[in-house]
């Protein structure tokens, strides 16, 4: 199946060839998870990925992906206050 992934903030340095917000298209086996996708795109670096959206919804690494999913990844980021 085909999914797209975009990298934000400091994760962009892993793919400096991509413009800001440019999606990367990935071919994955059926029933691949979000963690599988991250492994395929970033290699063994999953610790750095903190926030994962699939089609705008927050998901965890075990989430099974579907054809056409739009994935966006962030390192730990925050704002406002606490």
């Amino acid at each position, binding site marked *: 199946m085909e999914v797209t992934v975009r990298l*934000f*903030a*400091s994760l*962009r340095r892993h793919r400096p060839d991509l413009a*800001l*917000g440019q999606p990367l298209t990935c071919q994955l086996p059926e029933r691949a998870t979000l963690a599988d996708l991250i492994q395929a795109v970033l290699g063994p670096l999953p610790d750095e990925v*903190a*926030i994962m*959206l699939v*089609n*705008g*919804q*927050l998901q965890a690494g075990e989430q099974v992906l579907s054809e056409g999913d739009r994935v*966006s990844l*962030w*390192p*730990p*980021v*925050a*704002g*406002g*206050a*606490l």
Partner: protein
Amino acid sequence: MNISGYTGALLRIDLSRRQARREPWDLGLAERFVGGRGLASYLLYREQDPAADALGAESKFILGTGPLTGTGAVAASRYVVVCKAPLTGTIACSNSGGFFGPELKFAGYDFAIFEGRSETPVYVWIDDGRVEFRSAEKLWGLTPAATDEQVRRETSLMAKVACIGPGGEKRSLLAGVVNDRARLAARSGVGAVLGSKNLKAVAVRGAGSVCLADPEAFWLAALDALKKIVNDPVSFGSFRAYGTASLVNLINEMGAYPTRNFLEEVFAGAMPTSGEAIRDELLLRNRACFACPIACTRVTAVKDGPYQGRGEGPEYETTWSFGALCGVSDLKAIAKAHYLCCDYGLDAMSAGATVACAMELFEKGYVPGSDIGFALRFGDAEAMVAAVRLMGERRGPFGALLADGSYRLAAHYGHPELFMGVKKLEMAAYSPRVFQGMALHYATSNRGACHVRGNTVAAELYGIPKYVPPETLDGKEEMVRRPFQNSTAFVDSTGICLFSKFAITHREIVSMLAPATGLDFTFDKSIVQGDRIWNLERLFNLRAGFAAADDTLPERMLEPVPGGPRAGSRAQLHQNLQTYYALRGWDERGVPTRQKLEELGLEDTWQVCR
């Protein structure tokens, strides 16, 4: 008794008589209200009728520091500006970092209380124990940066300056107080109070330092906090690299990024206005406040073209207020609007939100183009910047309306429903239609729809202290009340910047507070202190005439999100407001019960003003 952490003194400045005197304050108050926001609010409550005119000569304004301000504890840079808010009529407490707060402590004062009104423009020069009143005739009309430079030339190049810009001079209700050239205690219109007193600036220079009760224990605790901050991926990672604007794409992608005056929650033009774009295109370098390793402030420049300029920011809230909220995706125009607000000394969040409101009024035909002088449509970057100039200069009747914020603007044209805020304060860049915690917080926050006094997005998105889905209602009342609103009230009272809280907790803060002051600050007490401060602010607002009916949200927030990943979601405030009141120990009208006041030791405080 040896006084540590605090200086134990306040400076009372009578602008009418041009007199200043140093007074001790009752240190017994420290364990009740901590300092900064808590203690300054208590002083205001005790000294001013909450129902009085915010811009009247009898109104007071207080500059306050916390016990940790200036100690060298990590990020302990903050001072507060406390007064009755001219924009909202609630209690105001705006805070800012930089170097001004620590300098006030070094001069020997925890607080400076300003009262009365000067006949002519004046500035106050606090040089340790000496206080002078000097003419500000030649400073009137200058930007904060130019004022800072001129005042330091006339006093001491080492002085630290807090002042107002032309916005505050004109008593615009969006005016803030600007310190260290470009840092704003921005919200609630506090700058208009200085303008109403003809007070252009306060310069301070102190040769002292802050005494520590147990220096060894203090520095061990401060070092521990420092280590936690430099090892934290947010504080020492994303804040340094991208500032808060790394949130733009995230909140937009999840469909919670208010767009075009909250008509929508996704902005197609967000990417070029994001933190990543600011870093790629505008960033010159980072800047830090006193004793802060985080250095989140971003010095930026637009090097050429019609929007040329230089300053600090924009950050998340202002790249949003002039960006998505106005439908503008031109980053240089957004930066220019931000720089202009700094030059006028205006709250850039409310300024952008007011322009957005004006755009909707214009597009719906509620404001004739002849009132504005040009077409003010969503997405028109040039018109957005032109509107900010009108507002800053208070030019013409429309400029004057803009300068007093979106509540009065929308009401003036007969469409108060287009005001997107609470208690006359504009909301921030986290949609309450998506984040149910923010819905309850905006509705109940003591200074109106402000995000920094209970930013539940930390739990509802980043999972700090623990993840709670944004859409759930269960347990949100307690989450808003305790770990966010009460906790923030405590931290704001210590002098520590809230941004440190992504890496450290109350435990680290009290382990610095206790050895700094020699007082018995503990984690358990900090919980009660935060609650007490929140309730004190509530009492001020009740006395000022606010009621449960004001704890609400704009009608639009109760309607479903029209599209994007969160389509259909809406604020469900009315389901949890009464539970929140009950948890707070308030009756169904939102008034603290006698039992609650007794529990917090506030019954006398309430009586004083009855």
